[in-house]
């Protein structure tokens, strides 16, 4: 029963309450740079999720042998190793997508969401929970990427899943949905400023939902003891 609630808490934190994209605002650089289409976003999101799960497992596995003083370089090395794997895999199997993601694929190494989870959760918890945490955080990040990519693709080109064949193989060409026909692209949505504006709206939307939920809840009696929670593990 205790295990169950812990997993539920992990999922809730990763997907909504402590979402790396919307709340922690980590890894903004790839988030804003590559989400011009759903497929790019999906590609980078899956790659990030894969790295996050693997690095969480590995960091959690070696957590008892890593000296505290040099843990960060070791974590970075572990992450870099997995990023290299992903990069080589994508280079081999989804070459066009690899080309269109460009520098942002190797830059996953510097994604703060990954090192943040390694430091804050995986280095202190057993492997199973760490891998589940990686899955949920990665999924949360992936969802934000895909939603942002969807908004920008619809606004910018009026399509959805354009170029899905780059990621999924040639059968996926049929997935392309033309929502409406544009004579000229709305370049702002495709350029980085549009990503910032859309991201702002997403965060605002999340806050609105949170406020609505908080208002709907019956007010609880205020507890006397208060403390600042820096992170949710405790």
């Amino acid at each position, binding site marked *: 029963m205790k295990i169950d609630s812990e997993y539920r808490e992990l999922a809730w934190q990763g997907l909504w309450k402590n979402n790396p994209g919307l709340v922690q605002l980590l890894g903004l650089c790839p988030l804003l740079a590559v989400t011009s289409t759903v497929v790019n976003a999906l590609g980078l999101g899956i790659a990030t999720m894969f790295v996050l799960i693997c690095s969480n497992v590995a960091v959690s596995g070696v957590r008892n042998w890593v000296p505290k003083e040099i843990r960060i370089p070791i974590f970075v090395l572990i992450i870099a190793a997995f990023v290299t794997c992903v990069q080589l895999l994508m280079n081999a199997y989804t070459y066009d997508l690899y080309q269109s993601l460009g520098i942002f694929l190797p830059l996953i190494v510097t994604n703060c969401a990954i090192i943040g989870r390694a430091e804050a959760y995986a280095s202190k918890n057993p492997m199973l929970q760490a891998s589940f945490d990686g899955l949920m955080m990665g999924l949360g990040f992936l969802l934000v990427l895909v939603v942002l990519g969807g908004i920008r693709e619809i606004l910018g080109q009026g399509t959805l899943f354009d170029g899905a064949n780059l990621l999924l193989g040639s059968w996926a060409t049929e997935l392309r949905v033309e929502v409406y026909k544009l004579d*000229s692209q*709305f*370049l*702002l*949505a495709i*350029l980085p400023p549009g990503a910032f*504006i859309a991201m702002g709206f997403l965060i605002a939307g999340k806050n609105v939902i949170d406020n609505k939920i908080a208002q709907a809840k019956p007010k609880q009696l205020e507890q006397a003891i208060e403390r600042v929670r820096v992170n949710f593990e405790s």
Partner: protein
Amino acid sequence: MAFWIASSPHNHEQSETSGLMRLVIYATIPGIFAQWYFFGWGNLIHISMAIITALVAEFSILSLRGKKIRPQLLDGSAILTAVLLGISLPALAPWWVTIIGSLFAIVIVKQLYGGLGHNPFNPAMAAYVMLLISFPVQMTQWQPPLSLLAIDLQFSDTLSLIFSGYTPQGYSVEQIRTHVDGFTMATPLDTVKTNITLGLTVVESMESPVIGKHFGIGWEWMNVGFLLGGLFLLTKKAIHWTTPLSFLSSLFICSFIAFILSPDSSASTMFHWFTGATMLGAFFILTDPVSGATSVKGRLVFGALAGLLVYLIRKFGGYPDAVAFAVLLCNMAAPLIDQYTRPRTYGHNVGVKK
């Protein structure tokens, strides 16, 4: 018996935001009239569409934010933004350009930052830049002055061009822009810029039909119109003289130096003053009290920086005109300028050696 003594100032002037905004809108009339006289109905149509969209957008956002709708909707600030945006758009731009621009100006640039008085950027110019980078094709299809058109462009033709892209006779915007001799006509600034890349001198560019006798048919009179409107605002003390003066003199000095150094590849000082959006920018956009600098010294720096940027972008940048970009860059610099040009408080720092 006690006299009631009010604190100073004793001499009141009950001027309101709406009064000031109305005055500025009236002052744009000479310029808009010149624009109508030389370029036809296009911009008037855009201005009216922009006003309607801006009012609808302002109304919906104000009601979403739970603000008092009547005073804020009718204070004229949204209308002024829409008028300035409508003036700056190409006359034959499609209708959705105006709608998107006007919505962006009011909803994102103005209201999301907190409404009138809180916006860090000039809404009209931010919307213009957004449109220019989003729709480069539509936003550079400038209509040549009516006197050069091979086709007679009436109100109904312009309306149909804006809404469908074709006149009732079936001419497209591109055909309208074509000279009798078969080349596409550009704005004077664009003509000079393109000709310099083609190896022609400025003097040779001045022979171009769009330039006419002085600095561009229509454009010169539009700038004169906005200059007149600006002088009217100055006499009414609606705007302070510092920003326009420092902007225009900075532009004058920059173009004068370049003209002295290389007269073949630099346009004259007056060409820079009386083409493009110079006068509109100097008197109506840079003087925006919200997004500009506040102190006298600050405004001098602000205007001078804008003049320098306009010159640099016109001369070396990728776009022919630069007022909108210069204004946005200066808006970003305004807080910094204010930081360093804070006026001395009376009684402070007297005789203090640094």
